[in-house]
């Protein structure tokens, strides 16, 4: 068989992004999946984005990944969450048509030059001199490559639990994968178990929506991709619905606890604290007599419904009895029950900042194998692993994003420095520079970097440059333009803002809460030409940069203040043992994790500030 630059094992969100990124940079790729029909499956809820996750999808798009484009082309509803808060919290979220999502991904991959596909499992890696050189498939063929990206999702030694039933499998109705964990453990890797769960799928025709609250999509659909691609119209959107559990539901669920795999101790893996099963919620928040459920349609042309908030692994009969006590679900018919799945992961402290393993050269991990949960978290790791696999086999310097540049940087730094003992998901609070990492400026932050590496293409780069130039022009105009009281006071009064008594600079007026640039432009006739000259996102961007300038500056000040620490590299082979003053715990952690910089060293759990000071002084700062 042909030799590839990079083999990607697994075709979920991580695997697809890895294959696309490396191929678009010029590597020859083989994407191996157990089932060509399930490429880019949304295994859990049919939605992309949300708080902090929406920002990640925007970053993936800014770098030239496909998740944003695919979501835009498959969405059935779009909402920008948190509009009432500051712009750092604005988070795009979309419901996708599950089948369309997978279809669009496959189409894009098929149109990407340099991507070959192969349907099989991978049972073994080809390893020589601590370097990975290919894979051995389930059918026994050996395929050579210069690098391998493993994105095994929940498939490595996956076990599905429903009540007292246990089925080996990577997803409902699909086989598990075996072999790789055992081989890597023999090479000294540490592996552990995690679990995640998914709710039942329901026949929408059996639901009574009149008993639920309707949740409509936004009128203004901005989407995820920065590229000027066609978007869904407001009228085409489907609604979600909100309903609630009650104490009867909880009581019924409790009758199944003795048969729950979680409580009976049949699951060893730790579940996600932030996306708990319904039985977990009842247990942990015993004082709450109801929990919110989101009733999400699975697509344009299906009656299938996803019950977000009702993830469970209790016996099917109990799931059904309990759910039928929820308003609107009295006659609910199941398409399939909820279940929990347990799988292998490799604690990510075993990785470098390019997601390459420390123990084996040219082997990269991305997605749930690194202990994360979520499509967005997986996809961005796939992208970074794909890029870095390409760079590595082409002998180019690695591509690493810092914590002040991207959520992706925060995610990878967290994983490799702190590890995780539960499925890791992104939060805005994990980012210390949240206000710099907004969903509106990912292109300005990242596109140029990716363009220089050959991933983001010319059209994307030009489109970003045009926005950047426009933003500067509008900002200058805002500094120079004054508004007369009579031009604006009607709007101000309507917004409960004090009317002007004398003319004021636009750049000052916009600092008022609740007053946004687009509204001002719409109010004053002479400003209309701006709307013709600039794109809406350019105007919005200029408005945000001026309105929140002080906050942005404050975060930039802290970035600068921490810069020295973040940028001071620690030699890879540094001998920590020769510093007597280091605490024992720090010595062990440093030796194991081998932080790349002093900044990373300071985030390792169990390391004290005094250990960092000692390192800092030792390194001569």
């Amino acid at each position, binding site marked *: 068989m042909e030799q590839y630059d990079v083999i990607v094992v697994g075709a979920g969100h991580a695997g697809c992004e890895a294959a696309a990124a490396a191929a678009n940079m010029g590597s020859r790729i083989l994407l191996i999946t157990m089932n060509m029909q399930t490429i880019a499956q949304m295994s859990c809820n049919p939605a992309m984005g949300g*708080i*902090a996750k929406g920002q990640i999808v925007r970053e993936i798009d800014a770098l030239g990944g496909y998740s944003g484009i695919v979501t835009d082309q498959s969405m059935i509803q779009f909402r920008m*969450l*948190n509009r*009432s*808060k*500051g712009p*750092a*919290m604005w988070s795009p979220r979309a419901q996708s048509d599950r089948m369309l999502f997978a279809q669009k991904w496959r189409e894009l991959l098929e149109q990407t030059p340099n991507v070959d596909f192969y349907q099989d499992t991978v049972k073994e890696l080809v390893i020589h001199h601590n370097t990975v050189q290919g894979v051995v498939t389930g059918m026994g063929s050996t395929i050579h490559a210069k690098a391998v990206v493993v994105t095994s999702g929940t498939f490595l030694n996956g076990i599905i639990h429903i009540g007292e039933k246990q089925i080996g499998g990577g997803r409902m109705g699909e086989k598990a994968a075996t072999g790789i964990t055992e081989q890597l453990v023999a090479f000294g890797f540490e592996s552990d178990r995690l679990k995640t769960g998914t709710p039942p799928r329901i026949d929408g025709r059996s639901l009574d929506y009149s008993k639920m609250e309707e949740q409509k999509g936004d009128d203004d659909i901005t989407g995820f991709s920065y590229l000027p691609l066609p978007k869904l119209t407001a009228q085409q959107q489907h609604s979600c619905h909100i309903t609630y559990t009650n104490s009867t539901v909880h009581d019924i669920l409790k009758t199944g606890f003795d048969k729950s795999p979680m409580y009976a101790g049949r699951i060893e893996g730790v579940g996600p604290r932030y996306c708990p099963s319904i039985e977990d919620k009842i247990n942990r928040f015993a004082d709450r007599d109801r929990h*919110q459920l989101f009733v999400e349609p699975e697509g344009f042309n299906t009656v299938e419904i996803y019950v977000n908030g009702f993830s469970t692994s209790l016996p099917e009969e109990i799931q059904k009895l309990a759910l039928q006590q929820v308003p609107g679900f009295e006659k609910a018919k199941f398409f399939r029950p909820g279940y929990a799945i347990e799988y292998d992961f490799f604690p990510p402290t075993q990785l470098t900042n390019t997601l390459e393993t420390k123990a084996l050269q040219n082997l990269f991990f991305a997605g749930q194998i690194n202990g994360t949960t979520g499509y967005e978290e997986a996809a961005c790791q796939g992208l970074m692993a794909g890029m870095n696999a390409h760079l590595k086999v082409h002998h180019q310097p690695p591509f690493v994003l810092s914590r002040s540049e991207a959520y992706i940087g925060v995610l990878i730094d967290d994983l490799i420095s702190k590890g995780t003992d539960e499925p890791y998901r992104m*939060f*805005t*609070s994990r980012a*210390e520079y*949240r*206000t710099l990492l907004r969903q509106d400026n990912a292109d300005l932050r990242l596109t140029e970097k990716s363009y220089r590496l050959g991933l983001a293409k010319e059209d994307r780069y030009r489109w970003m440059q045009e926005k950047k130039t426009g933003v500067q022009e509008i900002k200058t105009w805002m500094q120079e333009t004054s508004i007369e009281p009579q031009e604006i006071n009607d709007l101000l009064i309507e917004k409960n803002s004090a009317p002007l008594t004398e003319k004021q600079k636009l750049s000052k007026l916009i600092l008022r*809460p609740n007053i946004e640039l687009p509204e001002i432009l719409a109010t004053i006739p002479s400003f209309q030409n701006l709307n013709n000259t600039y794109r809406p996102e350019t105007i919005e961007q200029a408005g945000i940069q001026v309105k*929140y300038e002080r*906050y942005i500056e*404050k*975060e930039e*000040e*802290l970035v600068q*203040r921490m810069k*020295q*620490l973040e940028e001071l590299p620690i030699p890879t082979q540094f001998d920590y043992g*020769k*510093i*007597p*003053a280091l605490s024992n715990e720090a010595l062990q952690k440093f030796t194991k994790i081998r932080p790349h910089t002093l900044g990373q060293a*300071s985030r390792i759990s169990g390391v004290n*500030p*005094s250990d*960092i*000071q*000692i390192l*800092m*002084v*030792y*390194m*001569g*700062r």
Partner: protein
Amino acid sequence: MLGQFSNWNDTIVALATPPGIGAIGVIRVSGTHALELINQLFPKKDLLAQKTHTLHVGFLYSLKALQAPQPQPLDEVVLALYKAPKSFTGENVVEINCHGSQYIQQQIIQAICAAGARLAKPGEFTQRAFLNGKMDLTQAEAVADIIASNTEASKNAALHTMRGGFSHALSALRDQLIPFSALIELELDFSGEDVEFADRTQLYQLLNTAHAQVQQLLQSFQLGNVIKQGVSVAIVGKPNAGKSTLLNQLLQEERAIVSSIAGTTRDTIEEVLNINGILFRLIDTAGIRTQTSDEIEQIGVAKSFEKIEEANLVVHLIDATEAFSSEAQEAALALQTKANKTVTVINKSDEASSQQVAQWLTIAPNALAISAKAGTGIGTLKEALFNAVVTQSFDMGNTVVTNARHAHVLAQIQEAITDILFGLNNHTPGDLIAIDIRRCLHYLGELTGAVTHEDQLDYIFSKFCIGK
């Protein structure tokens, strides 16, 4: 800035006492092989066989000298041995007490370097102490402050920092603020339901109190600065009022050029005086005449007015023998404009009549009558200067911020607190308030040691001189 210490296991040597001629000098040698190294140069005893913390008298030679048939010693010395880890640096240390000649000291240091040691960089002994776990950074910083202090009061302030000082209060504030920060972050990440977990009223109260505390610390820095840098005192008065004589009397040595020709002192002269632990920097100024034709003297006069503006204190000297004309009164009153920082002194009170002195007292009722030439009233003047600084608002037991880095970071904390309070008052969204809370926590961390910043290291290790 320190460079990279590539071989910090090597042996370093430096003069530990101030350079120059003194009774004795101390040369400090530190390193894993310090004992072996000095042992080669000290034939009298086997130092390796001696116990730690012992003294040994004998001759010290260079290696080269020892090869000669009749070796010439460098000096007769007393060696103090400190074995690792029971030494200042945590390494093996030999301190060589030698004679206080610069020549001998240089010869000894050269001989030690020739035997395999190298000259220490500034602060390197302390750095080794730090790296060997003999002190933490806060202590190192306080040691730097102590080294830099030149009076009792500034030493006390530095010691207070070393024992915790205000960092306790700031740690407590940080500990209280962290849960609020966590709750606000929680609101942001779980905002599906629009809830407020963090009690805004409690947060407001906490920060309001903190604001007052930090304000007090910031104000203490002015005093702290005075304690550390010294109080500048401008001595002003008409030409020949006896300014230079007074200065000399205070310092009890001839410093300024003294003559009876009016206008002899053309430049400003600065001298340092220690009164009860507070440092006063005395600035003699050219005499102030309303009209002078001498160009150089005019420049001197302009400088004097500048000094009055800049000085912490002004000593206004009146010549009691001068005729009490309306012009003289006017000139004297012109110098009383900074009344709140001026100590008025009527000089030559022994040469003038009591009537003349009484006349001058009518325009300066609190003035002290002295005679600079005879030295009478000088003690009272010193007391007045001390009291002008150490008012009741300054209690030596209070926390005083003397370190410029601390003051700078405190100002950042105060700005962040002010911004949070503003945000709370104006119902600013939580994510924006969170920025200021994070800033506040960051800067609090820089002072309590939870966050390390290079400024601190720069400050600490740049303060040291070679041998420390």
